[in-house]
C-alpha cells in the first residue's frame, strides 16, 4: 500500500443526541481512489463531514499527512489541502460559474493552464462561464462542484455521491472525469451509491454499516465476490446503471 494520507482511528460523532459514528477506522492511501460504500444512513456522509470538521468528532483521532486535524476548524482543514464536494450539487446558485470557481482559488485568481485542464474535463463549464450557476442542469451543477474542488491542486478530494440523481450519459462523463483525475495522481475519497461506477473507479474500498467500517480491502476483490457484495451491501446499492 502507498503512504497513508488520511487516517481515521476510532472516530465517534454525535449529532445532537444522536450517536452516528461508532468508532470509524479508515485509511486513505496517497494517489489512490478509495470508495466509501454502504447502505443509506450508514454514516458515509457524516464521515466526510467529520473529516472536514463540519461535525466535530467526539472521540477518536483524524490525521492528515501526519498532522492531527481532529479538533481543527473547517477553514483550517480546507487550507491544509482537503477539498470537499458535498452531496446535492453543493454550488452557489446566485454566483456565476466563473465566480464559483474563483471562490475556490485561494489567491483569488485561477491558473489559466489549470482552467484549460478543467475545461477539458467538463467542457460545459466553458460554455456557461458567465451564467448564474443556478440555471445549470443537475449534471452541470455537479461538474461545477467537482471543478471547484480541483481548480487548484489539493492533497485530497472528498466527494459525496457525485452521480446521485444524474442521467446515465452524464454518469459516464463523470466516471471519465474521475479516471482522468486518478491518472493525474489525485488522492480521492469517494462516497458512492452506484456500484457500477464504484467498480469502475475504486482502487480500495471501505464499507460502512451502522456507523462503523465493516469491510476494507481492494475494489477488485469486492467486485469479484458477489456473495460478499450481497452480504455487505444488500440490495440497496444500485447495480443496474
Amino acid at each position: 500500500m502507498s503512504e497513508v494520507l488520511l487516517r481515521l482511528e476510532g472516530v465517534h460523532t454525535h449529532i445532537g443526541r444522536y450517536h452516528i459514528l461508532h468508532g470509524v477506522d479508515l485509511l486513505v492511501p496517497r494517489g489512490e481512489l478509495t470508495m466509501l460504500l454502504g447502505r443509506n444512513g450508514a454514516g458515509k456522509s457524516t464521515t466526510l463531514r467529520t473529516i472536514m470538521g463540519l461535525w466535530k468528532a467526539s472521540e477518536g483521532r483524524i490525521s492528515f499527512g501526519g498532522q492531527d486535524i481532529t479538533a481543527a476548524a473547517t477553514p483550517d482543514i480546507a487550507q491544509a489541502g482537503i477539498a470537499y464536494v458535498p452531496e446535492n450539487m453543493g454550488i452557489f446558485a446566485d454566483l456565476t460559474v466563473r465566480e464559483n470557481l474563483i471562490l475556490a482559488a485561494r489567491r483569488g485568481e485561477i491558473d489559466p493552464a489549470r482552467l484549460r485542464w478543467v475545461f477539458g474535463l467538463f467542457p460545459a463549464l466553458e460554455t456557461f462561464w458567465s451564467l448564474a450557476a443556478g440555471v445549470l442542469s443537475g449534471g452541470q451543477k455537479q461538474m461545477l462542484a467537482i471543478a471547484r474542488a480541483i481548480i487548484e491542486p489539493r492533497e485530497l478530494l472528498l466527494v459525496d455521491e457525485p452521480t446521485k440523481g444524474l442521467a446515465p450519459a452524464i454518469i459516464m462523463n463523470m466516471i471519465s472525469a474521475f479516471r482522468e483525475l486518478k491518472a493525474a495522481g489525485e488522492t480521492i475519497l469517494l462516497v458512492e451509491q452506484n456500484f457500477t461506477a464504484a467498480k469502475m473507479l475504486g482502487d480500495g474500498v471501505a464499507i460502512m454499516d451502522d456507523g462503523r467500517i465493516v469491510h476494507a480491502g481492494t475494489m477488485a476483490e469486492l467486485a469479484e465476490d458477489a456473495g460478499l457484495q450481497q452480504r455487505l451491501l444488500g440490495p440497496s446499492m444500485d447495480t443496474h446503471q
Partner: protein
Amino acid sequence: MNSLLSGDFPRSRLLAAILLAILFGLAFAPFLFPGAQPLNVAAKICVFVVLVASYDLLLGYTGIVSFAHTMFYGIGGYGVSIALYSFGPEWGPMALGIIAALAVSVVLALMIGLLSLRVRAIFFAMITLAVASAFAVLASQLSWLTGGEDGRSYRVPEVLRPGFRLLEEPLFGVAITGKILSYYLVFSVALVLFLLALRIVNSPFGRVLQAIRENDFRAEALGYRVVVYRSIATCLSAGMATLAGVLMALWLRYTGPDTTLSFAIMIDILLMVVIGGMGTLYGAVIGAALFTLAQNYLQVLMAQVSEATAGIPLLPQLFHPDRWLLWLGVLFVLSVYFFPTGIVGRLRR
C-alpha cells in the same frame, strides 16, 4: 463607466432609465424643484440611499437580519450633534465627531458581531433588537449630553448655513446659499458612498459574502472563516449607516431620537430594501426614492383625488389624506405580490 460601477451594470434598459432619471433628478434637484420641501425630500432620498444600501450589504448580500441599524445611524447623528454643540460650528469639531462616531459604531458592531454571529439568525436578530433598544433608552436618559427626548439643535460650519451666499447673483434663478451647498455635500457624499458599496459587493470580498449568504457551511469548507467575514460586513455596514446619520444631522441641523433612533425608521429601511429588491444595491436607490416620495407626496395626491371625486359616494372618504398610511400599506402589499424579488429583481429578469 465599467470601473465606476465596478462592472455591475443595471442589466435592464428600463432599470437603467429609471436610475438615470433618479440620478438626474437628485443632481439638479435645487434647480428642477425649487423650494424647501422638494429639496428636503431630495436630501432625505440621498441619505436613505446610503442607509438602505448599507442595510442591504447586511441583509441582501450577507443574509444577516439586524435591527440595530438605526442605532449606528443614530451614533452618526449624535456624534456630529455632540461635537458641534459642545465645541462650536467648525470643521475640526465636526471631523472629530465623525471619527468618534465611526469608532464607536465599528467597536459596537464588532462586539455585536463577535458575540452574536455564532448564534442562529433569529437569536442574532433578537440581540440586535435588544442592543438597539438599550441604546435608544441610553440616548434618552443621557439628556445632559444628547438633549434627551427633545434632541438638540446646533449650528453647522458657516458655509453650510442657509444665511451664507456663495454667489451674489442667483444661478438659473436659484440663490446659491449654504443650504444648496449643504445639499450638494449630502448628494456627493451619498454618491461616493454608494459607488464604494458597489465596489465592495463586486469585489472578491463581496463574492465571499454572497457565498456565505447562500450556504455558510460550504463557504467554510472552501476555507473562508465565516465569523470573520460576517464581522467585517457588519462593521462596514455600521460604518456606512453612521455616515448616513452624519449626513442627516448636517442636513437637519438637529438630532433627536425621533429622527435617528426610532424603530419606525428601521421599519422604513426594511420596506425600502424589500420594495427595491434585496441583494441588489440599485434596489436601495429605487426603494429609497419611491418610498420617500410616497411618504411625502401620497397625502397631497390623495387630497387631490379626494377633491376630484367629491360628488361620488364613498370615494372622497376612501381617498381622504388621513388614510395615506392605509394606501401606503396597500401599495407595499401590491409591490411585494407583483415584485416578490423587488422592483430591481423583476426588471432584471
